[in-house]
């Protein structure tokens, strides 16, 4: 029986083999030495029909406690914001879904224009001059920024604040080994970074990476951190949440050299960690050091406006071992989801979303204190949509006990930070209603302390 993903009939096959001038399909593989052939069937389970594969994989999906089954306050870098139906609709257009990198611009004006619009949106949000077409995620773009900074400054140290997402720090450290960079961390003081300590560490550094809002949800004194990093001759790199940028200042406005982050919250589902997109934007002076694809405007032979991949001499297929990055396949489809989402929100929606998150998080803080007697871990710090609370006992035990009641109360900071075993990081997006927040408070009142 012909497999549904194959097309040739027996007579097709015969005609084709005759045209090639071989007697059998096996003969097509005659260049393979005998010693490297498998010589047996692959030991895989028998082929399933579509109906069977659906049943099997759907059963696996059923075993997961996703946010439709559990009331979730998990964040820590990946957020349960609402994804509107228009995102699904557009991303399922086959012309976009099943195309590849637009090497041939005349075949790819749709995706090229979309990337150009995405670059524009990222530049507007971050206050930067140039954005690439996307990186893998919010961790890898931070490593990319280190590579940019190393070559832009000729220095070989990168400073990263301890209040930056631990996943980001871990990935940066992994790649730093290959880049020949030393990574220095600056501790947090009561939830945010001390500008004096940061400036001290930034001496001789290529870049200083900080997160705003930081991993604890606290607002860093970002303009001050940027000024101190620049003072030391290091490139200030801001790791930001796109959805905070309707209410928080654009990093370009306070002097960051690069702005980057995880794009998931804007238009992508959590999807157990991916695929998502990382965004990376910079000031003009770094345009030739940017990693990855960049789309530029031009005209065709008749003078009509059109879009092409540009400044490709930065990239691996031309500059090879001297390239600004090895990235090829990126996250265009997910970045397109981001563009559709940001278009759906518009500037008004973005601001309202930020304000709603601020209000709900403030309400949650208040309810946890009133109903459950839980104190914020960093009481004096302003926060955005996420905050840390002390739960009086090991937070992982609190998580386990709360989940028994169908509520996932947040992330246990003790998983990454010493001395924070009793601290829970609670994220509140616009999807959490006040009633759901009340429920969280009731459950925590029962299981905490």
């Amino acid at each position, binding site marked *: 029986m012909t497999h549904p993903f194959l097309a040739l009939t027996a007579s*097709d096959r015969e005609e084709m083999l005759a045209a090639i001038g071989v007697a059998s399909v096996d003969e097509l593989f005659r260049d393979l030495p005998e010693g490297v052939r498998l010589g047996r069937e692959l030991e895989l389970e028998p082929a399933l029909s579509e109906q069977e*594969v659906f049943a099997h994989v759907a059963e696996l999906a059923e075993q997961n406690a996703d946010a439709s089954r559990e009331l979730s306050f998990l964040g820590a870098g990946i957020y349960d914001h609402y994804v509107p139906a228009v995102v699904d609709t557009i991303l399922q257009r086959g012309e976009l*879904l099943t195309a590849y990198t637009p090497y041939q611009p005349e075949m790819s004006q749709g995706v090229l224009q979309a990337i150009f619009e995405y670059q524009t949106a990222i530049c507007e949000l971050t206050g930067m001059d140039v954005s690439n077409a996307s990186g893998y995620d919010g961790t890898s773009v931070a490593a990319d920024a280190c590579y940019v900074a190393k070559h832009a400054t000729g220095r070989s140290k990168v400073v990263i604040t301890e209040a930056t997402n631990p996943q980001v720090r871990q*990935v940066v450290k992994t*790649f730093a080994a290959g880049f020949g960079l030393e990574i220095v961390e600056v501790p947090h003081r009561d939830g945010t970074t001390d500008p004096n300590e940061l400036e001290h560490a930034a001496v001789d550094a290529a870049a200083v990476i900080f997160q705003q809002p930081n991993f604890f949800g606290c607002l860093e004194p970002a303009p001050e951190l940027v000024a101190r990093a620049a003072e030391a001759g290091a490139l200030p790199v801001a790791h930001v949440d796109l959805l905070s940028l309707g209410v928080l200042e654009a990093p370009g406005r306070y002097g960051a050299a690069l702005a980057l982050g995880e794009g998931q919250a804007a238009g992508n589902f959590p999807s157990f960690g991916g695929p998502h997109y990382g965004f990376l934007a910079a000031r003009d002076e770094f345009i030739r050091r940017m990693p990855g694809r960049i789309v530029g405007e031009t005209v065709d032979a008749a003078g009509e406006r059109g879009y092409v991949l*540009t400044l490709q001499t930065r990239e691996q297929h031309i500059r090879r071992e001297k390239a600004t990055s090895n990235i090829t*396949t990126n996250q265009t489809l997910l970045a397109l989801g981001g563009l559709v989402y940001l278009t759906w929100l*518009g500037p008004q929606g973005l601001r309202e979303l930020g304000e709603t998150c601020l209000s709900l998080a403030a309400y949650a803080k208040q309810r946890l204190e009133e109903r459950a007697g839980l104190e914020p871990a960093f009481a004096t710090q302003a926060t955005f949509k996420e905050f840390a609370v002390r739960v009086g006992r090991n937070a992982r035990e609190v998580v386990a006990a709360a989940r028994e009641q169908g509520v996932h109360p947040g992330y246990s900071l003790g998983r990454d930070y010493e001395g924070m075993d009793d601290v829970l990081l609670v994220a509140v997006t616009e999807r959490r209603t006040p009633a759901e927040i009340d429920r969280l408070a009731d459950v925590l009142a029962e299981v905490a302390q």
Partner: protein
Amino acid sequence: MKLVYEKSQSGRRASALPRYENLPSAPEIPEELRRSEPPRLPEVPEFELVRHFTELSTRNFGVDTGFYPLGSCTMKYNPRINERLVALPGFARLHPLQEEDGAQGALELMWRLQEILAEVTGLDAVSLQPAAGSQGELTGLLLVRAYFAARGESKQRRKVVIPDTAHGTNPASVTMAGYELTPVRTDARGNIDVDDLRGKVDEHTAALMLTNPSTLGLFDENIEEIERIFHGTGALMYYDGANLNAVCGISRPGDMGFDIVHINLHKTFSQPHGGGGPGGGPVAVRDILEPFLPVPAVVRREDGFGLDYDRPQTIGKVRGFTGPFGVFVRSYAYIRMWGPRLREMSEASVLNANYVLARLKEAYDLPFDRLCMHEFVLSARTLKREHGCTALDIAKRLMDYGFHPPTIYFPLIVPEALMVEPTETETKETLDAFCDAMLAIAREAAEEPELLRGAPHHRPVGRLDEVRAAKRPVVKYGFEEHPAPEASPAVAAAEAPKGA
């Protein structure tokens, strides 16, 4: 076509957000941290949004639109069941930091995919974490570093050998991993030049990076000798899995002697390419390298599936969480629909490529006259010399016939290269139509070369000026140069009450 920013009118919007009653008002953000000017995101109603992006899609060409023989990219059919599966709430809305007992289905799927990839590559252990092929390469080279560091040989072994046919990602990854590049030549049959190789591999060599079949679409006939040369000096062998589609179930990288493999899930295992991504770049390794794989490892325990962080020799993390999970769902479902019949997939891809090659090799130059694997490389050198028509002109003219062009000007060692990869999913009728078009274009080059040089003639735009784009880069919309257009009277009237 207008940009979405040019369709924007102040006061319009597509979104309505929930308004919760009786909430405390948003706490004041300190002034120096507060947004000073709103971002100029588009302001359009929902229907305009749908129309805009639908129109964009009509100006794009995907596998769903037509034949897309883009060499080295494996543009095969993407089954739609995969899209349905990945959208299931149990996957789409699952948080990556969910406790293990709340993610058993996801972990099991990943574990099963690891087992499958180990069998397909002939290796012992798999990490799904890398986000794409090039990140898999870099991960592989960091594994090489860690391996030699553990043996006390990191100072000694500084060089990575790469053939001149390699993808640019290979040399770029070598530099990013802190290694030095040792290029090696290709011989007259399109294999690695083994004599050149012998003089370049010694106790300073850390690894070989090889794509096999190569980017020429040729299986290296001397792979066993190459294996002896590298392993003889204690160096490792890295397999770039870009071309794995040719050999599934026929020959496994592990059987060829490779120690590390990256697999492009978006190529061989049918993740839709999404206009440039996402991809997936799992790495599979021999047991001696398993201790160095990224954390967390997805493991099966007596009481279920879990994440193991306790790997003291690990290189660390290369991406957030455990990798691009949605890509795993699609590739897992895809492979389960093939099972052991994956071999038929590879056989059909090789048959299709050889058939197209057989039909085209009289009209175009064939630099290496051998049977090919899943793709092949032609050259337009003669057409350029005799008629002034380049590979670029042929590519643009193919568009007028309704086909996506092949990869051009790669690999670099073939002048005027045209790299064709039909994949296994096409009908003979489609292959014949493509061959007919290529043959017609070769005739046109002789008879009417201007037709090629002016192509494409039937696309939404004509040939685009890439020089202009690079010389003075315009990489975002210039709001300042394009003041908001005057609203048409009808629109202005409709908007007036709101503004008042």
